[in-house]
């Protein structure tokens, strides 16, 4: 009980701000809890479809539309939202994610991770083909090409204001306008 209290005290001392990254103890305990929460049968799940190239292309667009806001097109998590989340989205290209089984990845996409920024997507159950296609895409992320990344940018959600801003930036880059584009953020 004393050890548990001390551990909780160390964690609480870090405060509740999302700006403070979790300490080693907190990260280790949370990682352990997440792994321990996945039932064996979930880990052992296999995709009911083969990873065909057309599925990968579909999933790439799906990911760019639904996931890239936090995870980034390349899976790094280096986005405005990703940087502000705590716990931060993991770099999906790295071992910590890639060594998870297909069933684990499916479960995380499908059910989300409670008390993190990861929502649950899709209908309950193990047969959501869209989610399985996303699992294929996660496996592909470490080998994502720069061409694919640029292609994904066209599938990223964009508001009318952002589209206008993008067009103004293009005009500036092309030398058609000397004034900085009017942007949402600060323009320097």
């Amino acid at each position, binding site marked *: *009980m004393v050890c548990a209290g001390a551990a909780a005290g160390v964690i609480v001392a870090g405060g509740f701000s999302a700006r403070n990254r979790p300490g080693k103890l907190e990260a280790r305990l949370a990682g352990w809890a997440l792994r321990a929460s996945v039932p064996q049968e979930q880990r052992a799940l296999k995709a009911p479809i083969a990873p065909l190239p057309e599925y990968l292309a579909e999933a790439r667009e799906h990911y760019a539309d639904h996931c890239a806001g936090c995870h980034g097109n390349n899976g790094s998590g280096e986005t405005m939202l990703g940087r502000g989340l705590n716990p931060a989205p993991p770099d999906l290209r790295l071992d910590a994610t890639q060594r998870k089984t297909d069933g684990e990845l499916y479960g995380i996409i499908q059910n989300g991770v409670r008390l993190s920024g990861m929502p649950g997507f899709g209908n309950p159950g193990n047969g959501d083909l869209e989610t399985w296609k996303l699992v294929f895409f996660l496996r592909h992320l470490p080998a994502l090409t720069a061409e694919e990344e640029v292609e994904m940018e066209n599938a990223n959600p964009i508001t009318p204001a952002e589209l206008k801003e993008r067009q103004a930036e293009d005009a500036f880059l092309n*030398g058609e306008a000397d004034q900085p584009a009017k942007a949402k953020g600060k323009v320097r």
Partner: protein
Amino acid sequence: MKRILMVVLVAVMMMAIPAVAHGNMDHVLGTVSKIAGNVVTVEKDGVATEVVVTATTSWETGGKPGKQSELKVGDRVVIHAMKMGGKETAHEVRYAHGGK
């Protein structure tokens, strides 16, 4: 033992309440006046802004993937950046050689 684990888990879970940072990225636009290692200086209307580029910065030119090594002094750039550790740090750099 079970109770101890529960206390620790509850404490850990409480720490993991998500929060999203507010605000938008800074948009640094102008002409590249200096490149020194991973620091790109961008000038616009006589005002110079230094931006740090990192391994995770994405590069684009003319709708295609670009490279840090291709960026030259005199290029027009649009950089989406965030202040990190007091320095503007680039998330994305879009550039065009000589303003075209």
